[in-house]
């Protein structure tokens, strides 16, 4: 369903120079913060109950990128995480597996082993995560390491400093270089760290910049700053992928990450997906949750629906 008016179909030479790229990104329609947040809040009042809730919980579980990004991560912890991703609830084998486990590059190998033979992917945060403050060569080496160890997905952070300074082409070039380093085997998720981009206009521009440069997914944040995924910034990114597909025919995934801890929150995000981009994005190839503690709440709610009773944190596994 391509639209006919501005912003124009991105010209192939949109990245010819910093100024053409800037011209394009700044020509995107603005974002009214009050209206955006009001829309996100009003979708948050959708009442999701019974059969719809059961569906939403299973869908959300299947969309989780089960994440551990700690300095203290060990191969043992990563193996435990992988086992949990494959079989989130050992007491109920009908529980779907999560989409992926997400680890640092040096943990890709044990993660791969832990999920071997399952549908669970291994995602790795490369490119000097979370600050992204390293030379491009270092970032690319980080990516190649992760890919070589078998990562199915690379979560890269953009250089927020360059973006905020208006050096869009530098950001663009980094993304295209990382995309190339991913080769054909790994999908690329581009993390904007929306909390540091500060304005909604910047988030929309970053979304388009990431998509123009070849991102397979756009992702809100690292989970390492004060403001991470919010309903409003996720709604905005959903609008961006919707518009991008309308103009280019290319579909890009969305991943809110950080701060989504409860089933109630997760369902609100699914409502946003449902009513903004619809069923084309309602599976884990196109939508993910970056989260570590969300899964257990989803499992407890799932048990509640199945048994009519709340169990408690001792009835789901830690890591």
């Amino acid at each position, binding site marked *: 369903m391509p639209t006919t*008016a501005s912003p124009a179909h991105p010209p192939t030479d949109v990245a010819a120079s910093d100024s053409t790229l800037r011209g394009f990104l700044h020509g995107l329609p603005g974002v*009214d913060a009050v209206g955006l947040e009001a829309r996100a809040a009003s979708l948050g009042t959708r009442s*999701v109950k019974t059969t719809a809730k059961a569906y939403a919980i299973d869908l959300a579980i299947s969309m989780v990128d089960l994440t551990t990004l700690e300095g203290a991560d060990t191969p043992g912890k990563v193996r435990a995480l992988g086992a949990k991703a494959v079989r989130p609830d050992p007491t109920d084998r009908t529980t779907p597996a999560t989409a992926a486990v997400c680890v640092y590059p040096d943990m890709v190998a044990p993660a791969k082993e832990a999920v071997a033979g399952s549908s669970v992917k291994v995602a790795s945060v490369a490119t000097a995560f979370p600050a992204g403050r390293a030379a491009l060569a270092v970032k690319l080496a980080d990516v190649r390491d992760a890919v070589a160890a078998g990562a199915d997905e690379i979560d890269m952070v953009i250089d927020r400093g360059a973006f905020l300074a208006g050096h869009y082409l530098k950001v663009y070039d980094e993304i295209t270089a990382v995309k190339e380093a991913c080769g054909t085997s790994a999908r690329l998720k581009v993390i904007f760290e929306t909390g540091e981009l500060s304005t909604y206009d910047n988030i929309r521009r970053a979304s388009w910049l990431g998509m123009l440069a070849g991102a397979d997914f756009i992702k809100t944040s690292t989970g390492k700053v004060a403001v991470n995924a919010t309903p409003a910034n996720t709604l905005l990114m959903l609008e961006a992928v919707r518009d991008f597909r309308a103009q280019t025919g290319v579909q890009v995934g969305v991943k809110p990450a950080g701060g989504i801890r409860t089933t109630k929150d997760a369902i609100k995000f699914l409502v946003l997906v449902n009513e903004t981009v619809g069923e084309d994005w309602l599976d884990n190839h196109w939508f993910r949750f970056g989260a570590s503690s969300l899964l257990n709440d989803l499992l407890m709610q799932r048990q509640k629906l199945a048994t009519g009773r709340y169990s408690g944190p001792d009835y789901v596994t830690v890591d």
Partner: protein
Amino acid sequence: MASAFEYAPAPESRSVVDIAPSYGLFIDGEFVEAADGKVFKTVSPATEEVLSEIAQAGEADVDRAVRAARKAFEKWSALPGAERAKYLFRIARIIQERSRELAVLETLDNGKPIKETRDADLPLVAAHFFYYAGWADKLDHAGFGANPRPLGVAGQVIPWNFPLLMLAWKIAPALATGNTVVLKPAETTPLSALFFADICRQAGLPKGVVNILPGYGDAGAALVEHPDVDKVAFTGSTAVGKAIARQVAGTDKKVTLELGGKGANIVFDDAPIDQAVEGIVTGIFFNQGQVCCAGSRLLVQESIQDELLDSLKRRLSTLRLGDPLDKNTDIGAINSAEQLSRITTLVEAGEAEGAERWSPACELPSSGYWFAPTLFTNVTQAHTIARDEIFGPVLSVLSFRTPDEAVAKANNSQYGLSAGIWTEKGSRILAVAGKLRAGVIWSNTFNKFDPTSPFGGYKESGFGREGGRHGLEAYLDV
């Protein structure tokens, strides 16, 4: 609607509201039969189910109520403002406490979605009472001179689109300023006003200060004509407003009229498109478009017309129409069979005159009064649907090329109640707003209300202001 994720029905419980099989008129603190014993039925527009049987006020009842209000006026107007404020605060708090019950009641009687009664109507109703309670002891400082006096008995006639909210807009400032009230709710939506009567009793409001007379137009006319009514306040159609103006001409009654509208919602090419689409939806599909200040004329800059219409149509396809008590319903029922036929007639006129009609794929319930969200393109200023108020979920889309043309088209209407401007450019908002002849102008939003903000019209949209400090003036001898 995406088929992968269908929300299960989420109906609000009807058991929170207890509707009696019959109700009387509320006169002098008591529920009484009509003098001539007449009754009428009120139905739920979503199901056509009869909700209750209501006493129908006639001329004799109007006289009884006005006399009760006159008697109560002496004591009520003599109370210190702070005392009147206590009653108003009490009413506001009871409304908050009973808001769920009142929201369900309003949805049953009016047909609008529970989402709107719960999230818009009831919070605003309480806010209006709180706001005017705050003014009751500060009238000397409201800018109308020292010790402004109340007018006396206010005869108030309200419409069916926001039954309880319009009641609040009328009663809260009247009581705060020391007037007493006889209010006639619309014949299709009398229930929430009768529940309000009960709230007055619960709050211990002195007898006769508020009187509620459900009934038809003849009761309204009798109220307006009653010689002992000092102030007439009316919200409703322009035709009835004109009749009222003729009725009171030559008397010393003070009058405020809030009448029809044909609001222009102007979208410039640099607008925040996604939010503008939301604003257009809020502007015309809020309360099924049965809103006098609805943004029923969309004026869109030609250069973004196609893109905006694509977005708008996609958005309309996600609107959920159906059971108003379902918490996920966006579009409820049309208030009455009569109103539905009025909308249908005007929409047929639109088609006959050559405008292009579009609605999303949308299944209408088999009973009740329903109209699918409707969009008309290829509309010109000469079309009936660009001029007449439709008062339903029907949007007429026109285009413009320059800001001057937008202003000229927006102002080219017999109405002047509301307008909206969508642009990222602040200076354009100010420049255009200054040239629009409308009582309320929203920028980058639409249909937002607040008790502190005055509301009223230009031209055939009426005169006088409700809300805010200005709203006090209509009930004071200044």
